[in-house]
Structure formats: structure tokens, C-alpha cells
């Protein structure tokens, strides 16, 4: 690996987060390197989703520092995060159900629209040229995710697996530097998981997105990810390459053990 690829994209240092008396995350440190696929695993309630929410600025940790692209900050709003290239998908699909697949993916482009609302409403001149360009990007994503056949279908009418794919498409439309995926394969059958895994790997390799994902399917995690962070009760219990994490007795006890 070159030095550039090895560079740290995001560093989380000694972060703690509590809601009233409940400590969701205690003193966790980890980093995400540029270009890697980073998995976060752990039993239910381990603080995985809270950690993603901290990373994209939705929650503000009481303690600790977050350094993203070399800039350290303690407070950041989600839209600041989005502007700086952090995109995410949600555990429970969060799409506009009445809008079509295409329109949902187009919303991922809204931060990239340069022209103001009035120009866009007029759909004229430079705004039109810009819209055509955004549409082209969205169509490439539709092609990439093989969802041509549902381009014009309202998302609410789609099966769950396809909704997940559309949500992933919307995140990709932001051309993110860091893509946070919260259980992208939950509730999917084997074939859908295989498809989704392929898309995640290709988004990483070919579209150059650094990816952090939460996933329960250990098989998928071990296949896809470069490094795995394991949380339990808000604490880090292991961090490393899949082979090492898999063999760690603490991890086996806390998490993998449940499956045995």
C-alpha cells in the first residue's frame, strides 16, 4: 500500500457519549484509513449506530476528539458532515416513500446543485445543463446498481431489499469520501446479500469511497472488510484485521459466541 492510501481519513480519540445516565459509548478510539472498508460489529446495544451518529455529527460526544481529513472538531452538524463528503444509509430505510427511485437518488445530488431554487424551478439555461449533468450521474448509479426497471416506481411500493439498494444509491449520488452504511444487508436473502456485497466492494474499489459499515452477518463482514472494530456495551474490545479479530477470545465470548 502506498503512503497516500494508508493515510488516516478519520480518527476518533477517546470518545464518550451518554444520554442522561446511560453511557452509550465509553472512551472509544479508532481510525479509518483512506480507501479501506471498515466494519463495526458488536451485539445489540453495543453502541454501533451511536458511533456512526457521532461520526456524521448527529450526536455530539461529551468527551473526546474527532479528526476528519486532518481537521479536529468537537461539534459538527450533519449537513456540515455531508458537505465534507460524509454520506450514510440508515438501519431502517429512510427514503421519500412517495417519490420515485430516480427522484430519491436525485436528492443525493442536492448539495452539489450550484444554481439557486429559482433557477432550478425555471429549468432553464445553466440550471438545465446542470440538471442534465446530475441526471447523468444518477443514471450511472442506477446502471451500477441494476435498478433500471424500478427507475420510475415510487419507492414505497418496492420490496425491502430494493429500497435498501435505492438508499445506497442515494448515498453514492453524493460522491462521498466516507460512506457510512448502517446494516446494509439486514433482512436480505442470500442472493440479495451477494448482490449488495458486490456493490459495496465495487463502490469501494471503483468509485473510491472509503466505507464504514455495521453488519451482523459475520460471513459478510469477514469477506468484505479490511479491518474490524468490535464494540460491547459501548467499549472497544477488539480492533484489527478479520483473521485476528475472529480468533480473539473476548470477541468469541461477547459476540460470535452467541451464534455457537
Amino acid at each position: 500500500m502506498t503512503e497516500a492510501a494508508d493515510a488516516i481519513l478519520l480518527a476518533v480519540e477517546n470518545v464518550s457519549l451518554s444520554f442522561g445516565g446511560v453511557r452509550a459509548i465509553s472512551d472509544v478510539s479508532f481510525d479509518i484509513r483512506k480507501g479501506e472498508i471498515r466494519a463495526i460489529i458488536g451485539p445489540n446495544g453495543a453502541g454501533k449506530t451511536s458511533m456512526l451518529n457521532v461520526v456524521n455529527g448527529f450526536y455530539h460526544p461529551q468527551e473526546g476528539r474527532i479528526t476528519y481529513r486532518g481537521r479536529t472538531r468537537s461539534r459538527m452538524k450533519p449537513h456540515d458532515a455531508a458537505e465534507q463528503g460524509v454520506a450514510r444509509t440508515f438501519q431502517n430505510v429512510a427514503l421519500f416513500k412517495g417519490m420515485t427511485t430516480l427522484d430519491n437518488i436525485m436528492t443525493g445530488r442536492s448539495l452539489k446543485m450550484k444554481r439557486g431554487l429559482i433557477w432550478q424551478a425555471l429549468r432553464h439555461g445553466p440550471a438545465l445543463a446542470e440538471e442534465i449533468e446530475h441526471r447523468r450521474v444518477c443514471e450511472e448509479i442506477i446502471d451500477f446498481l441494476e435498478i433500471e426497471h424500478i427507475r420510475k416506481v415510487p419507492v414505497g411500493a418496492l420490496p425491502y431489499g430494493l429500497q435498501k439498494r435505492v438508499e445506497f444509491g442515494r448515498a453514492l449520488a453524493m460522491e462521498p469520501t466516507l460512506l457510512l452504511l448502517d446494516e446494509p444487508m439486514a433482512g436480505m436473502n442470500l442472493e440479495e446479500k451477494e448482490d449488495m456485497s458486490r456493490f459495496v466492494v465495487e463502490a469501494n474499489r471503483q468509485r473510491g469511497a472509503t466505507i464504514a459499515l455495521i453488519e451482523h452477518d459475520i460471513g459478510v463482514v469477514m469477506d468484505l472488510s479490511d479491518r474490524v472494530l468490535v464494540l460491547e456495551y459501548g467499549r472497544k474490545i477488539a480492533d484489527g484485521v478479520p483473521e485476528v479479530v475472529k480468533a480473539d477470545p473476548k470477541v468469541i465470548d461477547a459476540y460470535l459466541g452467541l451464534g455457537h
Partner: protein
Amino acid sequence: MGSARETSVASDTFAKLLREHAVRRGDRPAFRHKDFGLWQTWTWAQVYNETRASAAGLIGLGLDRGHTMAIAGANRPKLYWSMTAAQMIGAIPAPFYADSVADELATLLEHAEASVVIAQDQEQVDKILSTRDRLPRVRHILYDEPRGLGDYDEPGLHALAAVMAKGRAALVDAIASADLDRRIDAGKGSDPSVILYTSGTTGRSKGVVLSGERSIVAARSTVAFDRLTERDEVLAYLPLAWVGDHYLNYAQGYVAGFCMACPESADTAAGDLREIGPTFHFAPPRVFEALLTGVEIRMEDAGAVKKWLYRRFMEVAKRWGERIANGEKVPFSARLAYGLGDLLIYAPLKNALGFSRIRVAYTAGEAIGADLFAFYRSIGLNLKQLYGQTEAFLYVTAQADRAVRSDAVGPPAPDVYVRIASDGEVQFKSPGMFVGYFREDDKTREALTEDGYVKTGDAGFFEADGQLKIVDRAKDVGRLVNGQLFPPKYIENKLKFFPNIREAVAIGDGREFVTAMINIELASVGNWAERNNVSYASYQELAAHPRVTEMIGAHVDAVNHALSREPMMAAAQIRRFLILPKELDADDGELTRTQKVRRRFIAERYAPLIDGLYNGAEEASIAAEITYEDGRKGKLVGASRIVDTPPYPKAPEARAA
């Protein structure tokens, strides 16, 4: 625009036809393809240039006269162009079914002796690479869609676009360009133009070799028969490897100069059909059936007013539609009611199906139900039947406008000679007749009679009005122990006309009586289950439901009733039946790639069930091996209840139905 008149006699190969179109109608649309959500169009002049670039690129890879070039993939312009590009060089293109599994494909690639393979995408490339040790002749694999292939490092793997770019660059050189012109001129009409592998209904696929000259002569006569011109348009969605696509779209398109639109993907074909609105269309009966099932399911869920209007006007259509279509005299009031129905129901319905602009539509391949056929005819779709074979380059018989019926396939097509042999087999001689089977001269000899007619292997007879009626495969027509005639397909088709029955296998040759194994149609039975609060988790569970058995039993009973009224068939009523616990599937070898049942194979695999049908058991079970889509194998264990269906007494006074 009588294109038959305009086309000169000089063009006896597809490469020459293309060159001629580029001159004559250079700015007319030739191909469309939906890509990134937009229809991209190429004119004949552009297609000619693209095809030349492809040909020059292929020459650069060493493809030469007499070589075979395989194509594996869906209907995409570049795949069609590479077909013509090979023909320019004098190489022989051989398209293969995109859904064939790796092993099947490898066997055929081996047999075809292909040196270059054009593969659509990663899926096809992976299949070929996985069997590459068996394919020493395959030197180059070209792919159209680069997605996922970025980090492949395989010898001889190239992007088709890159090869075409190299070809384009090479053609800047006047000598190279003149050389390609010379190659096009050197192509003879008698050269092999394409190898089309048969679907393998009766065993292993055979490579049918067709010549350019014969293909073009045949296409010219049907283009004239249906008055097709450069203004027509088709949606090219049929499998590239199938004679139907090569004839109806490719050959007729290159002869008439009309535009072929390629769908975005197989999943979007229905929507693409609506957007293109083709004027000439072909679909097998099962597609028309699925469309009608879809319409009926949606009408079940429609509001009361819509439902009433639909019912009311479908009755009008049923009563008068076909007679109006056939130009018969009907009362003014009927015309008025039909006109109103057209405004409110038929035209919007046709529009929703993408049939608004269709002038001529054909169906073939299987028998079509009378009701199904009448439905489309009655809403004003000019749907006709044809009977054809790969060996004939499709057309053997075809119905003319206004002489259409559902239970026969029409009189011989223009310039085709058809006769019935003494054993009932249909034999023909046609302008598009094949040259021979590739590398199988003995099979070629077997397929021809001494005086040069092709044996179709189908049993049939001519009706009084000169239309041919096909009963079954000649070798499948059997007899019961008591000598009763037993044409299995005839009985199966009667069963399959019920929307709830997807597939049926009739058994009876050499037996005491006739029995049947049935596959339910998941779409319509599933919808019925939903409306009747019948819960199920899988096909197997739904198939085993007692109420489903009851419903299918009623259908079998209705078939028996119909059979009892035909003097020839009364003793072939179905005495016992069962519902199969598994859907018959081409991946498991139970159906051919064109979805026809493989009788012998099924008889072996389901032997325990068949035994149950004849030994009086009330239930029979089976363990069958199944193949998942990713190629892994699994075992399916299932049981079926066997149901007795009492036969009707023979009704001698009734006329044959």
C-alpha cells in the same frame, strides 16, 4: 415505401445489405438502445461505420474467413453489429443463449470451434473463464459491458469498445479500408452466414447452418407478405440465439431497413415495449398469457366502475371484435358499441400493453388457447400464427391477414412446399432452408428425405381450408394398451389453457389409462390464495394445499369433459393426476431453454411419482436434485397427493370440438 422493390438483387449477404442501407437510407434510424434512461439512436450510416470498425478490430485479432465467432449475451446493438462484422470478414457468427449454464455453453463453444467470443458482461465472461481449460481454441474474449471486469487480468480478454476503437483507427489507412471493402465483396451468398443452435427439445443441440442468400430470399418473401417497410419498428427482445430473433428482427430488419430497438435490460422489456410502440411484434403464447393474467389480476383489484366497464365491453369485444377484425358484416349497433369500447377500454388497454401501433403480430412455438387468442384479436390486435423451425429459417406456414384461427397455423408461407408423409409427419422445402448441421453430416442426412424435403418430426394434417394443424411431435404420439391414440401435448395444452396451470405432463403411452402431473402457476394461484386468505410460504406449500388440489381437480374435470366430446380422444381422459412439489425448470434439465418439457428426462426423475399414479397409491413422494442459481446443487424432498378424476362417458352424438 416498397422496400422489396427498392432492394437490388446484388445484396446476397447481410454485410452487403448493410452497406446498401448506409447509402440508400443512411439517415434513417437502424438501431435504438435504451442506455442511462435515454433511447440512443444509430442511423444506418452510423451502424455501417460502427460495424466496419468492429470488423477491422476483429481482423486485427486474427479472425478470418471460415472461422466461427461466438456471441453470448442479450440483445444489444454492439452484439448485433459484431454479428454483421463477422459476416463482413466471412467468419461465421454463432449466437448462444445468454442464460445457458457454464458447462452447457462450453460444450457448444467447443462444438462450434469458436476462436473469438463476444460476451455481454462479467457474467458471460466468468462462465467462459471458468471452463477455459476445456476451450483451447478460444483465443479472444471481448466484452461489451465493462462493469466489474476492471481488475481482470486474463490473456485475450479485451473490451469490445477498445477493439472497435483500434479497428476505427486502422480504417483511417486507405489500404486497410479497401481491404475490408474487398472482403465484403468477396462474401458469397452461398457462404455460411450464421450457425443457430437448436434449443435441444429432442436431445443435444445441433448447429443449424444457414446461408446468406437463402436467409435473405426467405426474409424478402415474408417482408412482402406482411408489407414491412423501413418505417416499421420492432423491439428486439427475443433471445439472440433463437431463430425467431435472427429472422424476424435481424434478417427482416436488414432486408426491409426498419429499426430494431434493444431494451435496456430483460427486466425493463415490458416498459420499453410501451415506450417504443413497435409496429411488428412477436411473442410466444406464454408471454401473451402472462400479459392477460396480469391484466386480469389488476382488474380484480380495480374499482367497481372500472371493473363493470371492463366486463361489459369485453363481452362486446368477445361477441363482435373478431368478426369486425375479419371484415364481416355486423349490425350498426354492434359497431357503435365496439367503437365506444375501443375508446374506453380496448385502446387504453392496448396502450398499457405497448400494442397501440402494432400492425402485425405473430405467435408460435406452442399451441395457443382459443380464448386467449380471441381476447387479443377481439381488442383489435392483428395477431396471427405461424409454424416454423430453425431448419427452415423460421417460416413453414403463416396465416394471412383476415384468415386467422386459433387451432391451426395457416397455409404454407410464400414459396414453401409442405407435404404430409404417410406416417403423418410434416415435411417441407423452403427458400430459407438450412445448408446442414455444423460438423454433423450424418445428422443432416437423417433430417432430409431422399428428394430433399426436411423432416420436421411434427405430426399434423391439413384442414379443409388449407391450414396446417400440428398435433404433437411425431415420435411423442403414443397409444394406450387398448390402442387408443395418445398425443400427450394435445392433452397438456388443454390443461395449460387454464391460467392456474403453468405446466403439465401427460403420461399414457403403453399404459392402461392417461394420467397427468401438473405445475401450478404461482402468479395466479398466489393471487387467488391472497384473496381467499390461504397462507403459504413457498411454491411447495401452496401446491400441496387441499383447496388448490380441489381447484386443479375442477380444471382436469373440465378437460375430461371436453375430451369426452371428441370421438378420437374420449378414451384419453385423465383418470388420475397430481400436483408436482417443484416447478419444472430449465436449469434442472426438465425444460428446454425455450421452455418445452423434456418428457424422457421427467419420466426418469419423477419415476416414483409416476409409479404412484399407476399403482393406486394415494400419495407418492420423491427426492429430486435441484440446482440453485449460483450453480450449487441441493436436494428437494417432496410428496404429492394423488387424486382420482372419474371420466365422462363418451358422447358419440357430439361433433368434434
